């Protein structure tokens, strides 16, 4: 008798989480996004910030080609990592025989994009006024907020990842000369570590 009801409770819990959370996050996509971010940080370090002190609260004028480089590298990093995440997550979802484009994915993408788009616009405004140094901490903070916001629809680990990104972003605001290093830790190292955690904790 008791067994039946224990089983019922277990099924209720399982159904609640399966119907409302996106659980096919691919650990590999975290790892590869992290590697792409590290490459991006290195490129920015050697092509954009080399030879000038841009990581300050001061208004700095980036030479025209440095600004183009910054935007190109930034955009390139974003496009490559998002494509990799989409590709690997789609593969993972198919492996688990779940639908890629359903209510859950839509919901998660919407809750991610509200803070991300807001942050992106704020960054562009600051960049266009010459505050290049502030953009790095800002991306960390807004990305962290986006993760926290979306985490209720996916694995619990994502919430902690988001909180860590926010802390790193705030640190990067205060210790602005370490902005790029903290950015590399947040977008590179943390993604790799979280990718490995997700991969070992939720094997397909």
């Amino acid at each position: 008798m008791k067994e039946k009801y224990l089983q019922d409770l277990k099924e209720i819990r399982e159904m609640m989480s399966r119907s409302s959370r996106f659980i096919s996050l691919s650990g590999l996509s975290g790892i590869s996004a992290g590697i792409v971010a590290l490459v991006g940080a290195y490129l920015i370090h050697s092509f954009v910030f080399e030879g000038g002190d841009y990581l300050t609260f001061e208004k700095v004028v980036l030479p025209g080609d440095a600004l183009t480089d910054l935007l190109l590298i930034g955009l390139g990093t974003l496009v490559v990592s998002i494509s990799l995440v989409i590709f690997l997550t789609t593969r993972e979802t198919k492996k688990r025989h779940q639908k890629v484009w359903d209510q859950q994915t839509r919901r998660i993408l919407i809750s991610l994009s509200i803070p991300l788009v807001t942050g992106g616009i704020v960054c562009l405004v600051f960049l266009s006024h010459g505050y290049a140094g502030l953009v790095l901490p800002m991306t960390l903070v807004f990305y962290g907020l986006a993760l926290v916001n979306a985490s209720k629809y996916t694995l619990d680990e994502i919430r902690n990842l988001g909180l860590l990104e926010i802390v790193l972003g705030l640190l990067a605001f205060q210790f602005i000369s370490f902005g790029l290093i903290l950015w590399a830790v947040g977008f590179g190292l943390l993604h790799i570590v979280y990718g490995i955690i997700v991969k070992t904790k939720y094997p397909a």
Partner: protein
Amino acid sequence: MKELLNALDKAFENRVRLAIMSALVVNDFLDFNGLKELLGVTDGNLASHLKTLEKKDYIRYQKEFMDRKPNTKYFATDTGKEAFKKHINAIEQMLKQ
């Protein structure tokens, strides 16, 4: 013990109906196909269980057209959510004994 048994909701004795209700209380709504995939049951089976819950006023539906195809969205009603909560409490009480 007998009182506790009476507190259990007959509508949720069935596994499929229990699963439908679990999914609907944590989502704003789910459509027919979404439910079908989630539960892995046939159209007819799902439809008959949905009808049972509907008759008890635990769920309601809304018909819409998406790309000219009919699409039915299912929602848990307040009555349904209340009944579900009661049912789970009853199970918990029973397991405590």
